[in-house]
C-alpha cells in the first residue's frame, strides 16, 4: 500500500504537470480546467478542516464560497464603474487588486463563519446539517433579490483583477497563483491536523466528554475550526469569481455545498489530498462525461453510489488501504 505522503507529492506534481504540459502543447483550455480543479480543491480543503477533522457536516459552505465571490464582484464592480461603495458614513473605493480582494474575502467569510458557527454549533448531527443548509438558502434568496448587484443575473467583471508583478490574464500565471494558494492551504491543513489543536478537535469529534474532562471546550474547538474552514473556502470563492470573471447567486446554492462534500468524499474524508483528488476527478468527469452524453448525471450518480457503497475512505482510502475517519 502507498504511503499518504507519496500520494500528496504525486497528486500535486500531477496537477502542476498537466498545466505545464498544456502550456507546452498550447491548449490553454486544459490550463483553465486545471485551474478550476485547483480552486475547487482549495474550497474543499477548507471544508475538510470542519468536516474531516472536526466532523462538522456543513451543507452550507457555499455561503463562504459565495461571500468570497461577491467580495471580489462588489469591489471590482465599483472599481470598474468608478463608483464608491457606501456603507452608512463609510465610503469605500472599489479595487482591482487581488491581495486586497482576498483579504476582504477572507475576513468577510471568517466573520460570517463565526456568526453562523455560534448559532449552528448549538445543534449537532442532522440538525447541524439542516441549519447550515438553512443559512445557505437565506444567503441564496437574499442574493437573488438584491438588485443593486445584479440579482439573479449576477455581475460580470470584464477584466480579471491584477496581482503585483504578474499578468493574471495569462492562464498559466493565474493557475500558478491558485496552485500556490492551494499548497499553502494544504500546509495549513497538515499543520493543524498534527498540532495539539487538531488532535483535540479530532478527540472532540470522537468523544466530546473526554475533551471536556481535560478542561477544553469542544464548542470552542469546533468554532475555531469552522471559522478557519470558512475563511479558506471564502478565499477559493474569490479565486473562482476571478477565473470566471463573473459572480452570481448560484455560488450560494445548496447544490454547490453538496458538490463540495462530494469532492471530499470521493477523495477521502479528513485526508490531506482527498479534496485535491476529488476535485480533479470531478472536473474530469464533468468534462468527459458531459461531452459524451446529455444524460451524464446518471453516470455521475452511479459512480458516486459505487464510491459510497464499495470504496469507503474514498480514493485515498483505497490507495493507502486504510479507511478514513467515521463522520
Amino acid at each position, binding site marked *: 500500500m502507498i504511503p499518504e505522503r507519496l500520494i500528496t507529492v504525486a497528486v500535486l506534481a500531477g496537477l502542476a504537470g498537466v498545466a505545464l504540459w498544456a502550456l507546452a502543447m498550447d491548449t490553454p*483550455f486544459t490550463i483553465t480546467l486545471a485551474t478550476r480543479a485547483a480552486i475547487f480543491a482549495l474550497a474543499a480543503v477548507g471544508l475538510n478542516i470542519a468536516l474531516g477533522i472536526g466532523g462538522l457536516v456543513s451543507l452550507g459552505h457555499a455561503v463562504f464560497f459565495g461571500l468570497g465571490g461577491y467580495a471580489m464582484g462588489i469591489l471590482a464592480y465599483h472599481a470598474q464603474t468608478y463608483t464608491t461603495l457606501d456603507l452608512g458614513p463609510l465610503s469605500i473605493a472599489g479595487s482591482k487588486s487581488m491581495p486586497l480582494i482576498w483579504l476582504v474575502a477572507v475576513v468577510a467569510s471568517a466573520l460570517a463563519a463565526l456568526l453562523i458557527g455560534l448559532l449552528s454549533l448549538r445543534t449537532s448531527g442532522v440538525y447541524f446539517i439542516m441549519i447550515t443548509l438553512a443559512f445557505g438558502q437565506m444567503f441564496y434568496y437574499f442574493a437573488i433579490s438584491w438588485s443593486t448587484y*445584479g*440579482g*439573479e*443575473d449576477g455581475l460580470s467583471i470584464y477584466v480579471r483583477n491584477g496581482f503585483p508583478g504578474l499578468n493574471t490574464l495569462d492562464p498559466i500565471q493565474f493557475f500558478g497563483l491558485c496552485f500556490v494558494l492551494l499548497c499553502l492551504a494544504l500546509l495549513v491543513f497538515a499543520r493543524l491536523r498534527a498540532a495539539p489543536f487538531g488532535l483535540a478537535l479530532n478527540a472532540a469529534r470522537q468523544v466530546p466528554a473526554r475533551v471536556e474532562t481535560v478542561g477544553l471546550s469542544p464548542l470552542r474547538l469546533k468554532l475555531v475550526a469552522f471559522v478557519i474552514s470558512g475563511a479558506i473556502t471564502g478565499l477559493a470563492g474569490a479565486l473562482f469569481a476571478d477565473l470566471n*470573471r463573473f459572480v*452570481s447567486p448560484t455560488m450560494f446554492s445548496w447544490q454547490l455545498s453538496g458538490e463540495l462534500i462530494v469532492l471530499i468524499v470521493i477523495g477521502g474524508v479528513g485526508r490531506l489530498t482527498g479534496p485535491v483528488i476529488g476535485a480533479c476527478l470531478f472536473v474530469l468527469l464533468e468534462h468527459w462525461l458531459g461531452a459524451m452524453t446529455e444524460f451524464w448525471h446518471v453516470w455521475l450518480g452511479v459512480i458516486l453510489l459505487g464510491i459510497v457503497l464499495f470504496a469507503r475512505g474514498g480514493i485515498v482510502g483505497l490507495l493507502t488501504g486504510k479507511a478514513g475517519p467515521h463522520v
Partner: protein
Amino acid sequence: MKKLMMSAAALALAATGAAAEVKVGMITTLSGGGAGLGIDVRDGFMLAIEQSGRSDIEVVIEDDQQKPDIAVQLSDKMIQSEKVDVMTGIIWSNLAMAVVPGAVAQGKFYLSPNAGPSALAGKGCNPNYFNVAWQNDNLHEAAGAYANSAGYKNSFILAPNYPAGQDALTGYKRFYEGALAGELYTQLGQTDYAAEIAQIRASGADSVFFFLPGGMGISFLKQYADSGVGLPVVGPAFSFDQGILQAVGPAALGVVNTSQWSKDLDNAANVAFVESFQAKYGRLPSLYASQGFDTANLLISAVEKADVSDADAFREALRAADFASTRGAFRFGPNHHPIQNIYAREVIQEGDVFTNKVIGVALEDHADAYAAECKM
C-alpha cells in the same frame, strides 16, 4: 512566431480558393428542468444548417446545465481550444450576461437566439453582438399595448422577484395606460399561487398580466383556471409556447399572449419551416425553435456574402439581415436588436393539440427602448 505561421496558413488556404470554414460554438441548456428550450433552439438551428446543405459551417454544441459558471467555462473552451468564430445558443439572461461581454471583447461574434437583457441593448451594446430574438422587454411591452386595445383599465400584474421579472413589469407598464389594481413579486421557482390568486380576486381588477416562465407559468395557469376568478389574462409567449401548452391543457384556452412568431404566420419561409420541423422531429415547433432556425439562417446569409476572417465585412453582412425570416419582415436597429412586428395570439385547440392562433398585431415594427443609450 506562432501567430505568424497561422496567418500564413490562412493565406495559403485562401490562395487555393477553398471556401473559408466557419466554426460555430453553441452553448445551450440540454439537461435539467430548462432543457426543453435549449433542445428546441438547437433543433431549429441544426435544421436550417442541414437545409442549407453547406459543409463549410461546423457547429460545436455544449450543454451549460443552466449554470452561469459552466457557461463561462464552456465559452473559454470554445474560444481557447475550439477556436470558434461565432457563438450562439444561450437561453437565459443571466448566462448571457456572464458569457457575451467576454466573448465579444475577444473579437468573437455572438448571435443571441433567445436572451436579450437590457444591459446588452443599451450602454453595454457591442458591434459584434446581434440579438435575433427580441430585447427582453419587447413581448411585455406588446402585452401592455394589447391591454390598451382590449380596453383593460385596471390590471393586476405579477412576476418573479429577479431582474427579468422586474424588467417584465417595467416593460408592461411602459405601454399600458390604465390603472394598476395590484403589483406583486413572487418567489423565483414558486409553484403554488393560491395566495396571489386570492389577492387578485380581492383586488377588483379587470385583467391580469403575468410573466412566469417555464413550470411556474404552468402551475399558475392551472390554479388560476381552477380558482374560478375568470378575469381575462394576458402574458408574453413564454408561458404559452408549444412545449408547455400541452402540460397546461384546457386551462390556457382563450388566453391572449404576445409573440414575434406564431406557427400560423402566413409567409413562405414559415410554412416551409413548420412543415419541415414537424417532418424531421415529429413535434410542432415552438417559438424557441423558430428563433434557432432564424439565427442559423442569418448566419448562413452572412457566410454567403463575406468571409468570417474579415470581421468588418462579416459584420456588415450580418447587419443587413438578408434572409427570409419565419416571422416575415425582420431588420436590425442601430443597437443590433430586432425591429419587428409583435403579434397577439390566442390559445386554441386543434384536435388533441393545444396551440396558438394569431389574432392581430400588438405592436408594429417595434424597436426596443434602449437603442438610444447604445453608442457604437
